[in-house]
């Protein structure tokens, strides 16, 4: 073996010092993306930690919480005025506060998604091209009205009062639904949510897909992070955006292949332990007095929201 060592491996670096490079190294978009992905694992850990703590909402049975979530999302969708939505939002905020969640982090996410999936998506509908009504903010003045497909484009284009109200209504509904969902997710361990869904007769195949997907997200994030570290250990300079894109395209194919192999292995492991298309749970507890009281309170408050 000794005689076979290639000659280039006997060469030593010419110098023990280095010449500082001109300017710093900018973080590539891959690095930023990977950091976001690594955050998935951290978020998962935070979710597990907060959900397992011993605060107000965390103590309540997961079945009650799932029913609470469904009931309140229906209420949020049924309400047709903004003040009611604000009231429901305030109620969820108080519950979040009582459960000692990190309010800033939770609402940062809620606002981000509500802005994209509520406000931005609905914004065009505030134009008088889609929602007729009184123009409160004129944007464009055309020389004459046009007809395009099913749309009648008027001479003056702008935001209408009815349209803006509709956008705000939709945004507040999305915001409340998100706040409720994040609130329940952050106060209930994932396994308890799955157990509750099983008790509430959600089909096993659906639960299986959700459970495996949830687990896979973490495995995927960890693999990508490790793969990135492996690349980083062999990188001696900046990765240009074009190189980065090429690397990602190549890795996607590889990840697909590896995922497929992993999927087959997991399925074999499941079969090896007697999997037969049914999810079996243990330790489904009886509802306690606290859970019944909480159910009653949430129900009464919900009915009040429906009534006002």
């Amino acid at each position: 073996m000794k005689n076979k060592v290639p000659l280039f491996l006997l060469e030593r670096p010419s110098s023990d010092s280095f010449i500082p490079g001109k300017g710093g190294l900018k973080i590539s978009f891959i690095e930023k993306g990977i950091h976001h992905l690594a955050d998935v694992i951290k978020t998962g850990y935070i979710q597990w930690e907060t959900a397992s703590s011993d605060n107000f909402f965390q103590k309540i049975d997961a079945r009650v919480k799932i029913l609470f979530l469904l009931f309140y999302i229906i209420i949020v969708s049924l309400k047709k005025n903004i003040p009611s939505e604000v009231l429901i939002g305030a109620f969820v905020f108080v519950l979040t506060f009582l459960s000692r969640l990190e309010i800033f982090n939770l609402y940062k996410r809620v606002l981000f998604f509500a802005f994209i999936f509520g406000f931005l998506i609905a914004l065009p509908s505030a134009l008088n091209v889609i929602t007729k009504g009184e123009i409160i903010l004129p944007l464009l003045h055309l020389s004459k009205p046009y007809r395009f497909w099913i749309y009648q484009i008027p001479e003056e284009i702008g935001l209408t009062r009815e349209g803006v109200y509709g956008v705000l209504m939709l945004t507040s509904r999305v915001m409340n639904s998100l706040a409720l969902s994040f609130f329940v997710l952050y106060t209930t361990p994932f396994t308890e949510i799955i157990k509750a869904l099983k008790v509430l007769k959600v089909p096993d195949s659906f639960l299986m897909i959700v459970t495996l997907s949830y687990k896979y997200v973490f495995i995927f994030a960890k693999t990508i992070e490790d793969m990135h570290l492996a690349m980083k250990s062999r990188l001696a300079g900046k990765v240009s955006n074009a190189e980065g894109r090429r690397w990602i395209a190549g890795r996607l194919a590889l990840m697909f292949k590896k995922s497929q192999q992993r999927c087959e292995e997991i399925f074999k492991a499941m079969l090896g332990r007697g999997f037969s298309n049914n999810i079996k749970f243990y330790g489904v507890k009886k509802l306690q007095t606290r859970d019944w009281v909480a159910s009653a309170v949430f129900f009464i408050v919900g009915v009040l929201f429906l009534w006002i």
Partner: protein
Amino acid sequence: MKDIICLKGISYSYYDKFPAVCDISLSIGEGERFAIIGANGSGKSTLLQIMNGLIGQSSGKYFFRGNEVSEKTLKDKGFLRFFRERVGYVFQDSDVQLFCPTVLDELLYGPLQLGIEEKEALDRAFEVMQILNIENLKDRPSTMLSGGEKKRVTIGSVLTMNPEILLLDEPTNGLDPRTQVFLVELMLALNDAGKTLVMATHDLSLVDELHMQVALLSEEHKMVKIGPSDEILKDEDLLLSANLIHEHVHYHGEEIHKHRHSHFLFHKH
């Protein structure tokens, strides 16, 4: 022996919650064979990743050839190149390290990143394939390799960069005996060629065979002792406290026999 790596009071915690290494200080000399041993979860791999500048320590200082290594200094293009071409890292899980389409691409990735001419990079790749006996795998995708073949390719992918120091994370883990012997011979040859070897392992027989300088980590992620392998491996109480050997109970005929058991001392000459 001139120090190539020097760690002073290095600590690191995952998610700022779980401590992985606590207040580790050590020095590794040029051309040394150095092993970091400890039970699972003692922080060996994390320490190795810090030594490769892949993760930044939470506290403490790390010096490579007298230059401080940190997330900040690694942003300097000149230093990053200086550091990466001198320090090679072989991951425990070969799958994460093999990300190129074929074995040859894998061997060429590092040298091309260092700006080495294509012809020279190809020469290096073929020479390394020869020493690792993987010439026949040249055009194979990494997903179609066995565990032993993958390990050879990962080592080859680092060797083509001709690093001064090789960081190896559990290099013999999950390999068949023949591949393990091959790896030991390869490491000795590389060390004879002047390479510094640092490995994280709990394979005590490997440490014994390579006569290494050893740093023992406790399950509390702290440094317990540094010394030559002969001295550390003899100290059974120390190894027992670090969960590297265990009490073993078995029968001799009808008689129950109890003694301390390790997996490396059966072949002493």
